[in-house]
Each structure stands twice: as C-alpha cells, then as structure tokens.
C-alpha cells in the first residue's frame, strides 16, 4: 500500500475518533460514539497491518491474540462496582505499552536525522510518563481492590526521597538523550519512573484513588502522544492528546466535587480512610428512630420523593431493591427522583452506571445543581448509605469539609436516613442532619431496609 494511502487512512481514523468522542458526550448517542471510536481503532490497525513496513508476523499475532483474549475476559467478567479498578488496570497497560513503544523505537532506529535531540526528549518523556502511569495504576488498583492498604502510606524522609528520585530522573533522561546507549538508558529511566509511580500513589488514601486513576488516564494519553512523536505518527499524537485533555478535565471535575485541590489530593495524605472511629456514641444526642412500617406509610402518602444513594448502597448491592421501591411508588403516582452527588460512587458517574445496571432509567437521575432547588418542595428524602455529601456542616466556614458541594437534603419536609449506625463518614466528622426534628433514622442494612419498604408500601 502506498505511503499516502496509509496517511489518508490515519486521517479518516482521526476524524472518526473526534466524532466518536463527541457522541460519547450525550446519553442518546453515547453507545454509537463508542462504536465509532472502536471502528476508528480497527481501521487504523488494519491500515497499519497492510503497511509495507511490517515484515514479520509471529510476534504481532501472538501479542494481538493474547491481548485480545485477556481484554475480552476482563471486560466480560468485571462487576460494575469494580469499574474504577478495571479502568485503572486497562490504563496501566496502555501507559506501559506507550513506554515500551517509545523505548523500542529509539533502540530500533535511533533518533531521526532531522529531529536529533528532540526525538530523544520525546522518547524520554514517553518512557517516563508511560512507566509512571503503569506502576501508579497498578498501585491504585491494589488499593481499591484491597491488596494494598487503602490508608495513606507515608514513610520517613518522603520529600527528600522524592526529590532525589526526581533529580535522578532528570539525569537519566539527560543520559538517554545524550548517549547512544539506548537499551541501558531506557531501562534505567523506566526503572526509576516505575519507582516514582509507586511512591507517588502509595501516600494517597483509598478514597482518593478515582482522582488518581483519572489523572493517570490523562498521563497514559500523553504517553501515547509522546510515542507518536518518536514514531513521527500524527494519529498517535492526536488521539493521545484528546485523551490527555479528557483525563485532565475529569480530574478537575472530581477535585471540585470534593472541594480539594489536586495538590491536596496528591500530597495531603487526607483521611484515615475506613479506620476513622465513631466520634459520637449512639444515644449521646437524641435521634428519632423509625421503623420500616412508619417510614413506608410516610412514603406511600407522599407526593414527591427523592432518593439520595451513596456508595453504601452499592456495597450492600441494594440498587435492585431501590429500583423495586421506586417502581411501586411510581405506580401509586408518587414522583420519584434520584439525587446524584458527583462523588456518590467510587469514580465520577459511577452511581449512574450502578443504577443503570439495576435498570433505573437515566432521566430519573438528577445532578446536584438541578436537584438542590427542589428539596424545599420535596415531601420525603430517603438517604441510603450516604453521609458526608449530605452534611450541612459543609456550609459552616469552620468545618473541615467547608465549601464541599452538598445535597441540601436538610431543606426538605421529611428525611429518612437508612444507615447501619451513627458512625461518621469518610471525613470523620459528625452529621447534624441526623439530629434534626424532621429526620428519622432507620438503622438497618440498606438492602433489607429498601426491600422491607417496598413490601410495606405495596400493602398500604
């Protein structure tokens, strides 16, 4: 195939990627957008395989078959609750691949004649960013999966060590650019960068891992771009940059939803994680307890109900019970909506996926900005497995969660909180919502409570 034909194939593929990404942005077209992006990828792969530059097939065939089978199995079997981990794993492989491509191309052909040092610099960048993305993603995976302790792991002389590592990386990059010892220099740089990825992610708490994965997602895009520079391939540069930008935007959105700066996530070692003990013993302050029967009556005769799901709902696998309750209430003519906080799940939009899995239509899910003005007009709010995101203390300037965007649940007529106990949420602080006169606490497992409510409402 002549060179210019392949160039045109790459151009077509680039255009399809852009349209695919655009269509991924609307619920109606998203599935088509994903398919479009996948066909762009297939087009580029087939075009490349027909290229005259490829002379041996054994290694390619082995790699393609192995990768396809593994990818297929992972995508088919993963549980929706484990989605953040899986994205982390895929991301790690992508970043690692880019690092290998940059190194291998440098070893194979050396820096291009016209580019010289520039090719060395981009190769160093590709190896560095790709390797960090690889090892960082797997540590993040380990933290989410529980293989690595979720709490922030700090160690003595952390900053000094990071500084030394950073300087070593500069030296190794310089060595790669200046010397012709590409295999050794690449290996050194990759080794140091892998270590950096590990050390950067270990001190970050498990609850912040989605931010990390989103940022590393951006990195692996940039690494692909860098590999594109080394190969002189504009398609890689373009697609990598698109993903780099997407990752950065999602990272910023998440930080905003948690009211934290990226620097605070990266270096804050925030939150004791799950180990934070109960600050308030049950019974110290009076709460209004309620029963399933009483709560069911309240719901059955309400005209509008908003459900606030937290990650606790997903952990208890209670999405299906929630869906049942919603169906029964709607059959009675009650208006039901879900209020979704941006960090309700383990990554942005995760709760939407989990509820979609339970067959809840997406137009019942309302975002923070749109639902907040509605709470004052809502008869009953049911909070399930959520805590910090409905904590009115966020409005107090002195609180540690001050300024965090919250759902204004306390402004509604009645609140039912389904929770196992009064233990504090991730931020480790008490929640005044639980002690309001119009708040009723239903101490129970989320699935049991929602299942019970569904049964009782049906019999009213």
């Amino acid at each position, binding site marked *: 195939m002549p060179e210019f034909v392949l160039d045109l194939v790459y151009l077509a593929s680039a255009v399809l990627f852009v349209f695919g990404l655009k269509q991924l*942005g609307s619920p109606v077209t*998203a*599935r088509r957008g994903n398919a479009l992006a996948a066909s762009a990828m297939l087009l580029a792969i087939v075009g490349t395989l027909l290229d005259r530059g490829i002379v041996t097939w054994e290694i390619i065939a*082995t790699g393609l078959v192995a990768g396809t089978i593994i990818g297929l199995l992972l995508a088919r079997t993963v549980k929706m609750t484990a*989605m953040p981990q899986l994205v982390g794993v895929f991301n790690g492989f992508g970043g690692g691949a880019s690092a290998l*491509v940059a190194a*291998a191309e440098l070893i194979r052909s050396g820096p291009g004649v016209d580019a010289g040092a520039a090719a060395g610099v981009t190769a160093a960048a590709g190896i560095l960013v790709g390797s960090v993305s690889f090892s960082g993603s797997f540590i993040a995976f380990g933290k989410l999966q529980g293989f690595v302790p979720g709490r922030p792991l700090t160690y003595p002389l952390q900053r000094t060590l990071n500084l030394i590592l950073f300087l070593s990386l500069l030296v190794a990059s310089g060595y790669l650019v200046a010397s012709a010892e590409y295999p050794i220099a690449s290996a050194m740089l990759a080794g140091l960068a892998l270590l950096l990825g590990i050390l950067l992610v270990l001190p970050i708490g498990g609850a912040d891992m989605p931010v990390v994965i989103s940022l590393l997602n951006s990195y692996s895009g940039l690494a692909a771009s860098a590999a594109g520079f080394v190969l002189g391939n504009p398609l890689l540069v373009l697609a990598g*940059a698109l993903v780099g930008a997407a990752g950065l935007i999602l990272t910023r959105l998440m930080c905003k939803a948690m009211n934290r700066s990226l620097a605070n996530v990266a270096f804050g070692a925030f939150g004791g994680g799950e180990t934070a003990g109960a600050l308030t013993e049950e019974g110290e302050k009076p709460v209004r307890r309620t029963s399933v029967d009483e709560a069911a009556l309240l719901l059955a005769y309400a005209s509008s109900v908003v459900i606030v799901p937290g990650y606790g709902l997903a952990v208890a696998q209670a999405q299906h019970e929630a869906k049942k309750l919603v169906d029964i209430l709607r059959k009675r003519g009650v208006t039901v909506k879900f209020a979704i906080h941006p960090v309700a799940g383990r990554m942005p*939009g995760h709760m939407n996926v989990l509820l979609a899995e339970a067959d809840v239509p997406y137009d019942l899910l309302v975002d923070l900005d749109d639902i907040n003005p509605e709470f004052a007009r809502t008869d009953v709010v049911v909070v399930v497995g959520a805590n910090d995101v409905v904590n009115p203390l966020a409005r107090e300037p002195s609180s540690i969660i001050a300024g965090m965007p919250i759902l204004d649940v306390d402004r509604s007529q009645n609140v039912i909180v389904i929770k196992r106990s009064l233990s504090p949420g991730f931020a480790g602080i008490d929640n005044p919502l639980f002690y309001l006169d119009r708040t009723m606490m239903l101490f129970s497992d989320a699935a049991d409570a929602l299942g019970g409510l569904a049964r009782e409402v049906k019999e009213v």
Partner: protein
Amino acid sequence: MGEWLIGIYVFVLAMLLGFELITRVPPTLHTPLMSGANAISGITLIGALLVAGGEGGGLAAVLGGVAVAMAAINVVGGFLVTDRMLRMFRKD
C-alpha cells in the same frame, strides 16, 4: 516547517479540541467517558505493531510484542466494557 513542529501543532490543537468536547458532557456519562477515552489511548497499539513487526527484529521487536499485547488489552477491554455500561443506560 519541520515534522516535529507540525507534531506540536497537532498536539496543542488536539488538546484544545479535547477540552472543548469533554467540558459539556453531563455527569451521568463520566464513567463510560473515562473508560472510552481510556480505550482510545490504546492507539499506541499502532506504534506497537510497527515496532514489533518492523525490520531489525531483536530486542526492539520483543519489547514491541509485549507492547502489542498490553495495548490490545487496553483497546479490546476498554471498548467492550464501555459498551457493556452504555448498553444498560435507558431512558424512561
């Protein structure tokens, strides 16, 4: 204008395009979007194919082969799992 400079142009403009495309995406789609974008970053597979199958062989080809496998996991798994998620989204 050198090839490298054109590359920089493509990179900068594609970043801006990416910002434009993603900023207006509703939060409902953020998880599939991240997963789909992630699959697109597997484009490095193209590079891996060229290095693994190119002339010269040896160490570069072996590294390229490992890269092919890793990138293929990213691409195949990424697009499939994104589709699995999006298939579940339905309107009332």
